[in-house]
């Protein structure tokens, strides 16, 4: 029984983790929480399903959908965020909320209001763990989600620590004025971060769709849970995002299993409130050191 709850928690947790990673990139660049992150995930899922239904092979469909989402991310940055780049962080956050509503509306026009599916990458036959008849099961697709999350963490860590662009993004986040004085183009950094997180969100959307389907409005809840996971793990930390996602998934499934499924989300959000009070920087968040 407990084994199944843990595997269920890993399934949802892996999904939250992948969504949470997208929040980390834009936060790193601008301290903006991009509330349209869930919509990038939705675009990834919906575009993949649309391209796949049009007869394209699955990998091609996913690559194309990532392209579409990246373009949307860049346009969002260019048309909505950049014109207001000198506004406060709160204003930018509100802009992303508006963008998320717009993107959902556009999705119903470009596609439709129906629920779509995408085939699992490597079959639907569940993997049984444990030899007894009551063994716990896991879908192979979950391993894809976990694997991609791990790879994304590794790549992002390398990107932020070792590449000039990555370092420039971190520099802008730490001190925008100083970064600009050092010759870093803030505009380019913002564009890169929006494009990158849109691409990652779209990849997440395509990976999640075989497990939980996709529709024009899936971004709302996924975005919210992913945001919660990012907060729990520590905003801006990619490893923290994954850890936060998995923790959130496990809390939910163990809560649903041993306490009550009706209050599943309540436990999750209670833990987050507790984390915010006692660990304001999350599990792996950097201590914000303000230099005078």
């Amino acid at each position, binding site marked *: 029984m407990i084994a199944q709850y843990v595997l269920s928690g890993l399934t949802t947790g892996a999904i939250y983790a992948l969504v949470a990673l997208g929040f980390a990139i834009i936060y790193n660049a601008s301290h903006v929480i991009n509330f349209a992150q869930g919509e990038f995930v939705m675009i990834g899922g919906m575009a993949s399903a649309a391209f796949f239904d049009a007869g394209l092979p699955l990998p091609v469909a996913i690559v194309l959908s990532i392209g579409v989402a990246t373009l949307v991310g860049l346009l969002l940055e260019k048309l909505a965020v950049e014109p207001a780049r000198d506004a406060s962080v709160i204003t930018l956050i509100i802009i992303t909320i508006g963008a998320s509503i717009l993107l959902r509306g556009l999705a119903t026009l470009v596609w439709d209001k129906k629920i779509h599916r995408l085939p699992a990458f490597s079959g639907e036959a569940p993997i049984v763990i444990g030899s007894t008849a009551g063994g716990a099961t896991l879908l192979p697709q979950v391993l894809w989600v976990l694997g991609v999350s791990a790879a994304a963490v590794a790549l992002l860590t390398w990107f932020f620590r070792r590449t000039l662009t990555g370092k420039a993004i971190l520099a802008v986040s730490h001190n925008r004025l100083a970064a600009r004085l050092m010759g870093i183009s803030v505009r380019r950094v913002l564009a890169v971060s929006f494009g990158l997180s849109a691409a990652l969100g779209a990849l997440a959307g395509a990976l999640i769709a075989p497990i939980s389907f996709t529709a024009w409005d899936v971004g709302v809840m996924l975005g919210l849970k992913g945001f919660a996971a990012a907060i729990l793990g520590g905003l801006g930390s990619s490893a923290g995002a994954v850890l936060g996602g998995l923790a959130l998934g496990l809390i939910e499934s163990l809560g649903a299993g041993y306490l009550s499924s*009706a209050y*599943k989300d309540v436990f999750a959000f209670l833990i987050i409130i507790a984390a915010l009070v006692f660990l304001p920087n999350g599990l792996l968040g950097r201590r914000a050191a303000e230099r005078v």
Partner: protein
Amino acid sequence: MFLRTLVAAAMALALSPLAEAQPIRIGAFLSVTGPAAFLGDPEQKTLELYVEKLNAAGGVLGRKLELVAYDSAGDAEKARGYVKRLIEQDKVDVLVGGSTTGETMAAVPLAEAAGMPFISLAGAVVIIEPVKKWVFKTPHTDRMACEKVFADMRARGATKAALISGAGGFDRSMRAECLKVAGAQGVQIVADETYGAGDTDMTAQLAKIKGTPGVQAVLNAGFGQGPAIVTKNYRQLGIGVPLYQSHGVASKQYVSLAGDAAEGVRLPAAALLVAETLPDADPQKKVVTGYKRDYESRFKQEVSTFGGHAYDGLMLAVEAMQRARSTDKAKVRDALEATRGYVGTGGVVNMSAQDHMGLDLSAFRMLEVRKGDWTLVK
């Protein structure tokens, strides 16, 4: 004197065909846009289509029908405003509409006060319980779906069932009704799990159900993608007892989303969804295949039960006017209440002073998914 009588007679003569030509006005308020557009859109299309068809066939009582329709957009407050306008300004002869229960309940006091026959297209039991003098409804209720499922469970020897439901309005209403009627149907609910809107995985809830001793069948009261995920997770966990879904997902979409996992799943559904599969002897066969053909050839989209509710609403009103031989509101109301053996898309309707819906459990058919398609359970 003579002249005046002559003029009066001439005027009467001149006026009478005019009076005859006054159309019968059908007042409708539907959620054509907004969150409940999936209800109101097919309803509006159906009313337009059949008003046109009835007029082409010579109208009703020798008069043309005229549809006066407003879009209440799923908003009870708007519905109230439009119903007031329909009664006071448009002076309609009968009200057909109220796509959602909220819109319907907002219109009920107005219809009752004005003495206006009102046929609602919304689902909840509260519309007709307690009975309201002027209010009728065409769709079947959640409670009937629960009763149909529990009766089928009993027939398969299952008396202990688990319930899993979502957080939406449909899900919650059906869950409450199922909990209410389970005892009377001889089924004991031994587990009652829920999942949230937008949840991506329900294996935790299902594992809990799997671990509950004595579960002989599982019912998922749900709407949207939740039930398809539940179905996939159910197979993933290898739960052996029968799985039932609700009429909320009685569509081809559910089967294509859940794929192979849907094999063997049973659910109650209106006859309209299995129009072609019905045996020729079925009383509803002719009505449902006819409506399906008319609707799909005209609008190039798949027929839904919601449009069928509007068809039944319009036809019940028309039939009542024909039996009453007038559009006098009190007479039409009495004729509606006296409806017996009307065969519609929703079932065979037998109204009475105590029952303003008139459907019984035969309105639902128990379907099973076999080889990716619906089959009727005998």
